[in-house]
């Protein structure tokens, strides 16, 4: 479909002359401009690139600029598919990368939820000025550099870092515990960076919940914990799902955190893709890695979009 057939009907003004454009604008033309401009932009710069990546993922690597050649025949195409995607199956680097990423992203999501839910709940139930300040403190990290916040952990987690120094100074440990370039460090980095993404949708959801429902449940004999399980938890499910997707999806493809804090020998898939592209210069394989990653994330992305659209419909 194109931007032209977006507006509902097509009744061009009959008159000609100086006011023609203005009249077109005032009729339905403004709608087409409003919708058409961002639509066209997204089609070209967001949707089209995926197709190009898909095409390159079935091309052959070559020593040329750009460094690939499109398949000329059906046979060449199947051969390219076998080569490029074959790597992903044969080479442990790739499939452990995917599994690693999914595992780390899933665990981090659960950790974010365990820390974020009580925080969001506490903020939603606090009053007036306190709530605004707490909310500001959650939003603030959004605005500060992601890269620098990960960098801050490098200073904390190193063998010579603040945490080890303090622990040694306190006499709790004699030798520094190696924490940098471990899976633990990656978890810390991901939970730290993505916690606000979990808290904000949860907060928005919990804050909207009618507290009289909790009162009604208590009135009918439910103790506070029971009330939470029966009423608050099921009603906050949309917030839990939105927050979890906001953490899980980007965390799966995370590059910066594993690159700075993680182990080099079992990288996450984002780092594999990055290295494949920048170090090996193998564009077709990098594209194949991206295609498979996108494929893995399609279901979570659809869930996220579905809940987004639902929230939009309710409003």
């Amino acid at each position, binding site marked *: 479909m194109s931007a032209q057939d977006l507006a509902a009907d097509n009744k061009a003004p009959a008159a000609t002359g100086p006011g023609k454009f203005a009249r077109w604008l005032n009729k339905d033309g403004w709608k087409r401009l409003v919708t058409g401009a961002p639509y066209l932009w997204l089609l070209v710069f967001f949707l089209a690139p995926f197709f190009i990546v898909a095409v390159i993922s079935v091309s052959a690597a070559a020593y040329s600029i750009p460094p690939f050649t499109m398949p000329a025949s059906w046979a060449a195409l199947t051969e390219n598919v076998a080569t490029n995607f074959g790597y992903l199956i044969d080479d442990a680097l790739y499939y452990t990368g995917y599994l690693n990423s999914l595992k780390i992203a899933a665990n981090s999501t659960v950790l974010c939820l365990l820390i974020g839910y009580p925080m969001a709940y506490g903020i939603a139930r606090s009053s007036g000025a306190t709530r605004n300040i707490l909310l500001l403190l959650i939003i603030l990290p959004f605005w500060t550099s992601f890269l620098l916040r990960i960098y801050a952990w490098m200073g904390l987690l190193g063998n010579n870092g603040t945490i080890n120094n303090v622990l040694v100074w306190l006499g709790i440990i004699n030798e520094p515990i190696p924490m940098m370039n471990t899976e633990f460090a990656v978890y810390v980095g991901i939970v730290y960076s993505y916690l606000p993404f979990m808290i904000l949708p949860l907060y928005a959801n919990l804050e909207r919940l009618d507290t009289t429902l909790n*009162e*009604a449940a208590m009135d009918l004999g*439910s103790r506070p914990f029971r009330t939470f399980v029966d009423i608050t938890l099921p009603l906050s499910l949309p917030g839990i799902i939105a927050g979890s997707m906001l953490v899980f999806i980007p965390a799966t493809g995370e590059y910066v955190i594993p690159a700075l804090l993680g182990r080099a020998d079992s990288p996450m898939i984002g780092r594999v893709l990055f290295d494949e592209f920048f170090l090996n210069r193998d564009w077709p394989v990098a594209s194949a890695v991206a295609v498979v990653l996108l494929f893995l994330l399609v279901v979570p992305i659809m869930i996220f979009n579905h809940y987004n659209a639902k929230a939009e419909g309710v409003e």
Partner: protein
Amino acid sequence: MAENSDTKTDPVFIRIENVTKKFGSFTAVDNVSLDIGRGELFALLGGSGCGKTTLLRMLAGFEAPTSGRIMIDGQDMTGVAPFDRPVNMMFQSYALFPHMSVEKNVGYGLKHENMTDAQRKDRVRELLDMVQLTQFAARKPHQLSGGQRQRVALARALAKSPKVLLLDEPLGALDKKLREQTQFELMNIQDRLGITFIVVTHDQEEAMTLADRIAIMDRGVIRQVGTPTDIYEFPNSRFTADFIGSINLFDGTVAAIKAGKARITAPAAGCALEADTRYGLSTGDKVSVAVRPEKITISRGKPRSTAVNAVQGEVLDLGYFGKDSLYRVKLASGALVRVSKVNDQRLSEADRQVDWEDKVWLSWDARSAIVLPEERP
């Protein structure tokens, strides 16, 4: 606060003793004491912010009194959590659980009761029968009309057979026709189950028709407690007189007292006034004479006696409401008097006995007026 001589013979079931509730520096409920009998349908009536909802929430246990205590059936409720009280509430917004079916909503309170599944099912069926919602058992709240939701809320609150049912503006969200019908349903159910109902409302008509007794609240204080008739016919202050229905008030001083009747001079009225008094008044006291609009006779002709309670004026406005008409009559002093007259005959506009700008006589019986002491600040 006036201690009303109580006609109720029921034993005291709920006792509210010197209850005060403060939110910061704001006093929502100010030293309220109140006794409510077993099986009574009691209404707390007042405008927004008068403290009636706070009092109700203290009965339910959602708020703790700053001082004073509440006893229900001889048991001190201080420190008893909402989920341990023999009290259930029907919320103004109904507070139906949106993710549960009608059946689950109604049965929710029974989960905490020591019952078998079959017993629970039977009880839910019985309740849904009572509110005529059996065929809607599987629906979610958002698939119900406002009236149906109200009935689900009622059934849910009654499920545990509470000793007291609290109703926060139970009819507030319904339209006028439905409200009338639901009112009678509520009264029937209360009558049948014999549960004590406490209704909070801002709607005086609702309170008058529903309740056995009404407490009128204003700024955290109870102004008057009594039966609907008591409150309407024998208000104890200008506030209640003005709050319930509409009333004409003439400020004046007591000139003489004789045989339960007081004679008052009121410059605004322009004539001598005579009225019943229930209060110990003496000559020279500042008072107000209150007369309800429907107790005044309006006529073009001179009434039989013009010695007391008869004034002349000019019709300023006339409102026709079908069953009755309302007149606003301007007296010589400039004061406006409201008079209503039942349209007990079928007359066309041409036959109208009293019309705009007519000079009219207003008169009323001494027993229809009441003397109110001057408002204490």
